[in-house]
């Protein structure tokens, strides 16, 4: 009885192997994650270049250098973008360790810490205008609008992999897109760090991460079926 069962099972395995063999098509091997992250960052660089052409770079540099928290926050968001994107591409491969998700954490802490320091700073940066009341809404729309194309491109690129942890990959991918949009915001955001402004930024970033998690997870899961 037991030997019959084993024979049925091994027959099932053999039939599956034959079916998979019949379904075999040549595949294009995936490029290394470092190369794939460079491709995505190039897209991001192109967007940054386009924005730089219409923004006042000298004023931005002056504002960022006026207080250490300003350039530290910008540096933190940029590093978060790079490391989160790299972590997402690594996590999109089935044999990569879950610890890759921790890669953007130090940069994220730097970004959050420096932004918090900006709120606690007692003096205002010269040349930075007081923020108009309708500005937070603009920031929100800007971050959401900028994150959308970046997220679409990133998710489509991640979909070519095969993530065994689609949730985590989507969250980290969302973090990369949100931090990229926040970094690009520096180019057209001539205001000092204010608590309300930062709260709106944080709110927009959380929305982007949640949207990526819900939508990206579905797309990544559909690619693994």
């Amino acid at each position: 009885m037991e030997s019959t069962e084993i024979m049925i099972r091994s027959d099932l395995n053999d039939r599956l192997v034959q079916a998979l063999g019949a379904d075999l098509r040549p595949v294009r091997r995936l490029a290394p994650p470092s190369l794939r992250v460079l491709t995505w960052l190039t897209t991001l660089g192109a967007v940054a270049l386009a924005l730089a052409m219409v923004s006042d770079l000298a004023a931005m540099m002056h504002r960022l250098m006026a207080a250490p928290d300003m350039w530290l926050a910008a540096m933190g968001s940029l590093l978060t973008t790079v490391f989160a994107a790299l972590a997402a591409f690594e996590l999109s491969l089935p044999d990569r360790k879950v610890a890759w998700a921790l890669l953007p954490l130090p940069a994220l802490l730097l970004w959050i810490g420096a932004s918090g320091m900006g709120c606690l700073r007692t003096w205002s940066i010269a040349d930075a205008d007081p923020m108009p009341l309708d500005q937070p809404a603009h920031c929100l729309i800007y971050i959401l609008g900028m994150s959308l194309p970046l997220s679409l491109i990133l998710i489509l690129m991640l979909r070519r992999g095969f993530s065994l942890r689609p949730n985590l990959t989507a969250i980290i991918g969302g973090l990369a897109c949100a931090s990229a949009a926040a970094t690009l915001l520096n180019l057209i955001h001539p205001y000092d760090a204010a608590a309300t402004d930062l709260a709106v930024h944080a709110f927009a970033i959380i929305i982007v991460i949640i949207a990526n998690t819900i939508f990206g997870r579905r797309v990544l899961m559909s690619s693994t079926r």
Partner: protein
Amino acid sequence: MKIRTTVVDAETSTQKEIDRRRAAWMAAAQAGDRAAYETLLRDCIPFIARVARGQGIRPDLIDDVVQETLLTVHHARQTYDPNRSFTAWLRTIAQRRAIDGLRRTGRMRTHEIHAPLAYENHSDPSGGPEETTFHIDQTEVLNSAVGKLSGRQREAVEHLAFQSQSLAQAATITGRSIGSLRVDWHRALKTLQAHVHGKH
């Protein structure tokens, strides 16, 4: 001590050789070589089963993990980099699928409980032995009554009662008119009623 070191070295060397062979098969499979692919998958089955056992999968569920892992290998084959270890790549996938299997089993356990007493006390919808005996008895009485019907009446009962056909269907099959079948059906019912009541 030296002998042990030599044995360990030999084992490591064999594992490396196996890994190189699997990596070469997978690289060929990525290029579309079906024979290499099927050889690789068959070669992987015992390894996946070992990994699943190591993760604590029940023996009767090991083949589920094997099949899930083979499917994942198929869908994820573009992600394998031949410069990396194939065995490590496969082990991670098999471990993950085994964990999924354990979670599935855990979820099933939350919906199902082990209650042998409830199972034993559950009433059988087909009834007890007395009811079964009574049912057999009734069937025998009925069969004997049907046997005593005329040929035309028996034909009507077989088609309309035993085979649950409509009058029209039975008329088509037997080649008789609906009216003739209806008459024989009613006569048969009267005869059967009289026979069964007469027995009791």
